[in-house]
């Protein structure tokens, strides 16, 4: 079943992807068919099953509290599409 335009628009807004009016419908159809297809998971009995988090292979590891990084502003800013002095810039955010 196709996802309705309102849902597609809401999701696109959450994901900050601007959509053309024409895209909403095709995306709704595509997403709908994929969602329908994954619905088959409802058949699986998952009572008492723990969800997988990671693959359970690595051991929890903690870093020592030392300054080992940073102080690399040139690297941080080198790819910025727009900047002002030492800052990234964005259109004014009104709070």
């Amino acid at each position, binding site marked *: 079943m196709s996802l309705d335009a309102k849902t597609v628009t809401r999701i696109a807004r*959450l994901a*900050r992807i601007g959509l053309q009016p024409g895209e909403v419908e095709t995306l709704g159809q595509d997403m709908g068919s994929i969602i329908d297809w994954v619905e088959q998971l409802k058949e699986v009995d998952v009572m008492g099953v723990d969800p997988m*988090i*990671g693959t359970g292979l*690595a*051991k*929890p*590891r*903690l*870093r*020592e*509290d*030392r*300054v*080992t*990084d*940073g*102080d*690399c*502003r040139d*690297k*941080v*800013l080198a790819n910025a599409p727009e900047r*002002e*002095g*030492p*800052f*990234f*810039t*964005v*259109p*004014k*955010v*009104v*709070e």
Partner: protein
Amino acid sequence: MSYRITGSTGEWEIVVGLEVHAQVVSEAKLFSGASAEYGGEPNTHVSLVDAGFPGMLPVLNQECVAQAVRTGLGLEAEINLFSRFDRKNYFYADLPTGYQISQFAHPIIGKGKVLVDLADGSTREIGVTRLHLEQDAGKSIHDQDPTRSFIDLNRAGVALMEIVSEPDIRSPEEAGAYLRKLRQILRYIGTCDGNMEEGSMRADVNVSVRKPGETDYRTRCEIKNVNSIRFVMMAIEVEAQRQIEVWEAGGTVDQETRLFDHVRSETRSLRSKEDAHDYRYFPDPDLLPLVIEQSWVDELKTALPELPEAKRARLEAEYGVSRYESSVLCVEQATADFYETVARGADARLAANWMLGDFFAALNRTGRSIEDSPVSAEGLRELLGLISNSTINGKIAKEVLEDMVETGDSASAIVERKGLRQVTDTGAIESAIRDILAANTDKVDEYKSGKDKLFGFFVGQTMKAMKGKGNPALVNETLKKLLSE
């Protein structure tokens, strides 16, 4: 006595819960090796991990975990040996990855409590719901350019503890007391410096109101990021007032996020409802669940410093100070330490008296803190010793303290230099008194005819004549004797 606001329909009770964001004291950030230090040139305390570069991965800082556990122990809270980091997804200019790593479903610390002291001498227990670790965001600077905001990521990724209280707070005063107590505990343990101006402690304030006797909560509003205790108290008052007006006008309060404007003393809605957030929390697949050992928790517990409540109880028992005195002495660990150094080998009650009185006044006057006090604990102890062994009297001691603050000389040196030893020679006292009585025969007559109050006048005159150095007890005794002759 309960705090009540009176509206047009009668009395209202307020219900407040606080979410405190406390910056963890650590060298490096929660998930990167960049410095967590406050300040720094823009975008210098930033690693490519903090800036969310492609392929960069978080690795958890052990000390930040330890700090959270220590704080949990300080709040007498449940320590969860299993906790987990989730991603909270939302877009914002100072959130480089598009998600904040935070412990949503499984916080490291569970239920705990904070005991707060109120002005009327009573205490209340405020429940702590949870404490979790999360990343701070960067900073957007809005006032540098008319059309653009500037982004500095120095704060991005610094470790925060979010400490959530139960909705147990019932007055602005309790909110203030809770924050002060929480800050005190954090400072004692050394997990947060509690500096609200630098933003290392800030509070989200959840406020609702209800009629006394109602058991359900009404809709609450969250006032975001209030950065001083005074403002928290003000914000609660004006927000409660606003909500009462809404209810009393027959309206309903909308659950929303608001902002406190202290200049206009009002709260304002921050976001429109249609843009409601949907954070899409899910376990961060770049990190493993955090599993800690009970033995490690025990080690941290053993190494914990004495906490404010325990210290107070001990000072009261050991030095006989009052509950009020102990509470003031224990606000800062350094003050309590200072006090104990003075009190050991001096009259402990006298020491408390002097610290709370003249000594704090001297600190205030000179704008110094206890850490760089112009008078050392040992110096103050010596001064009090001179009072106790009757070398000087209390009044002269005040003068000596002032001199100590000014010159840095020791109390005994000042006493010698200025010849301030008190006079205990009864002959000298008697002769001084006889001179006073002789010069004031009219007053002596009045006194003898029943005007008892004049006794103070004679004491004053005697002390004045003796340049304040008379032993007060001897002066009293001798005066009584001579006046009854």
